[in-house]
């Protein structure tokens, strides 16, 4: 009995070793499993941001007055707005916007100063380049904030009786990066891990060595474990790399416990490997395995809440995300990392992950011998 167990483990260990070697023996593979993760973390960490911090603008000032100059000075003082052109007439507005040189044009009418003085109010026209309406909307909000401050400084300004004091939990400056990087800890490793797992069986099928494996004394369950472990290990190493970058390169403080994070990521990686192996078992060639994986990965990543919040989606898409393990992994990592949530608060994120793992892993093992194609 005891001997059997030892024997079992020894066989499993040798199978795992073989799978590890199969993945890591190629130096190009070793590079492709580490470098892209680091590269993408940098790229997305810096590139994926909705925080507006540079707004080139142009001005048509037909009033040439004191108030418009004061307002512009206030705008320049934000450090976000910088003037790229001073237009002489409204006819030039179209060119400034069309060419993309200015994101917005401020138009002060000739009577701006006099109306502000005599009637106490004057309109300021702002023309925005809506080709990216999100950026344009952010810029409009910032202009409104600057103008509100300006109005408050006017003599006899109406004072709002109620003011809002806003405080954001866990991310005081509302930086996009604090949202993206914890999300990347789960999603970056998923991309390669699912592909690796999907290729592991398909490549042996294509080379004809999988049939040899099937006639050995290994059970399909053992083969499945042997195929799964290296992918899981590689996925966890990749997640750890992104975590380290997030902590030490980008300096985003972690509030929660490492153990909770590790438990969540382990379960998530197991679920993803299960999906990958199932794909692998139904594909006849490597190419098919890769294409199927890719076709699955794209909606999984897009509908995970990584870049656009799940809450903005229409109801039916929100329902569809319940089948997406990445959505729950990202939610879990964000809550543990940013909010310091203990396992007791995020346990519900584990349920879908367990479901996926319990469904896909036995399915993959079964498919090894019962091929559909």
């Amino acid at each position: 009995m005891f001997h059997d167990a030892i024997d079992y483990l020894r066989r499993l260990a040798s199978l795992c070793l073989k799978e590890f070697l199969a993945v890591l023996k190629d130096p190009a593979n070793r590079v492709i499993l580490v470098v892209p993760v680091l590269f993408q973390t940098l790229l997305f960490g810096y590139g994926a941001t909705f925080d507006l911090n540079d707004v080139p603008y142009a001005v048509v000032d037909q009033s040439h007055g004191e108030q418009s100059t004061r307002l512009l000075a206030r705008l320049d003082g934000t450090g976000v707005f910088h003037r790229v052109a001073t237009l002489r007439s409204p006819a030039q507005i179209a060119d400034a916007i069309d060419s993309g040189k200015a994101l917005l044009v401020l138009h002060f009418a000739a009577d701006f100063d006099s109306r502000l003085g005599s009637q106490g109010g004057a309109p300021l026209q702002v023309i925005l380049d809506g080709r990216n309406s999100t950026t344009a909307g952010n810029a409009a909000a910032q202009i409104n904030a600057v103008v509100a401050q300006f109005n408050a400084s006017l003599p006899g300004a109406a004072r709002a009786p109620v003011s809002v004091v806003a405080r954001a939990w866990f991310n005081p400056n509302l930086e996009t990066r604090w949202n993206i990087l914890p999300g990347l800890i789960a999603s970056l490793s998923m991309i390669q891990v699912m592909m690796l797992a999907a290729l592991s069986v398909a490549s042996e099928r294509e080379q004809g060595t999988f049939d040899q494996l099937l006639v050995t004394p290994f059970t399909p369950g053992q083969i499945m474990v042997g195929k799964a472990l290296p992918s899981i290990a590689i996925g966890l190493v990749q997640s750890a790399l992104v975590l380290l970058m997030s902590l030490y390169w980008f300096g985003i403080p972690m509030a929660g416990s490492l153990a909770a994070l590790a438990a969540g990521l382990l379960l998530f990686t197991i679920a993803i490997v299960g999906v990958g192996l199932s794909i692998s078992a139904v594909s006849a060639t490597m190419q098919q395995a890769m294409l199927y994986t890719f076709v699955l990965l794209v909606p999984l990543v897009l509908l995970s809440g990584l870049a656009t919040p799940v809450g903005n989606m229409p109801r039916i898409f929100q329902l569809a995300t319940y089948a997406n393990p990445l959505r729950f992994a990202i939610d879990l990592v964000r809550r543990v990392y940013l909010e310091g949530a203990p396992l007791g608060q995020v346990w519900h994120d584990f349920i879908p992950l367990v479901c996926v793992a319990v469904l896909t892993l036995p399915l993959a093992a079964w498919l090894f011998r019962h091929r559909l194609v």
Partner: protein
Amino acid sequence: MTAASGHGGLRDFRRRLFALILKEFRQLLRDRSNLLIGVGLPIVLILIFGYGLSLDVRDARVVVAQEDASPAASDLVASLSGSPYLIVDVVRSHAQARRRMDAHKADAMLYLPSDFARRAAAGDAQVQLLLHGGDPTRAAAIQAYVGAAVALAGYKQLDRQGAAAQAEGVTVVDRMWFNTANNSTWYLVPGLIVLIMTLVGTFLTALVMAREWERGTLEALFVTPVHPAEVLLAKIVPYFLVGLAGLAMCLAAARLLFGVPIHGSLLVLLFASMLYMVVALGIGLLISAFTKNQFLASQIALLTSFLPAMMLSGFVFDLRNVPQAVRVAGHLLPATYFMELVKTLFLAGTYWPLVLKNCAILAAYAAGLLALARMVTRKRLD
């Protein structure tokens, strides 16, 4: 080639090319997984980007802890409920609201303390707004919506108190050109053209060609009397057409499903798309020729073309917001220029200075990449 054989040479060239293209087409159509990427995935992308993803916040759940039952406080709550973007829920105590926030059952919490009405009458009431910073874009938008609703309620109250007519100061009248609906779908769907062409041109082509290198079937073709250039051309043509089919799908979806206007010239858009398709194919061919390995080719194609086209071309994330180094990297990508072109042609119209500049850049990339691909393929024969 001498002048005498010139004509026959051309006819032979066409005959051989036609036969090869036919072969490639059959090969492409035989494997369902190819069609999945070439046709299925574009449809999925159009549906997800068109209907699913949005950067426009809606249905934000705001829980109001209203510890003050005065009319002033109720007016404020009514003003909040009037916002089409917010779902307002009122509870009686701070603790109750706080519990909902902790459980993520609310996106934001507004606290109206019991002395709210008294202080509002005195003109110095403060209401506290708590937000979940884990989702900063959503939090910022909710903050703006709540702020606007609170300000509106405040001014209404001033009006009612019959406060002396006060100076209103400068009012901002903003006009958003090109996207009057202020709807992110309008720029996401045109941008998809770039994404789908990159997918077909670079990812699919690199993968399929790498497989041929890996299995040595390309060498088998090279020992036949066909020229390497003919082999390349025949490989390119089917994917080129699949890419254009993706363009047609995007155009149809934009126009018919999402009502995105196409202000620019369709002809220019078609021309620019063909140019970009050649660029994407060139990159795909190069990647496959350098790696000659399916896994590597797919990873490199993802990393150097698809992901950057999604993240760095100004598709979702505006290049104006990123650090200088990332912006420079973005401007090395052909996808960035095509993205600019597509968005301008769709939403703004045919603005010639930009069209000519970006087309010239794309043409230069196309010529350079094709020459390089040709060179790499020939070297292989030596």
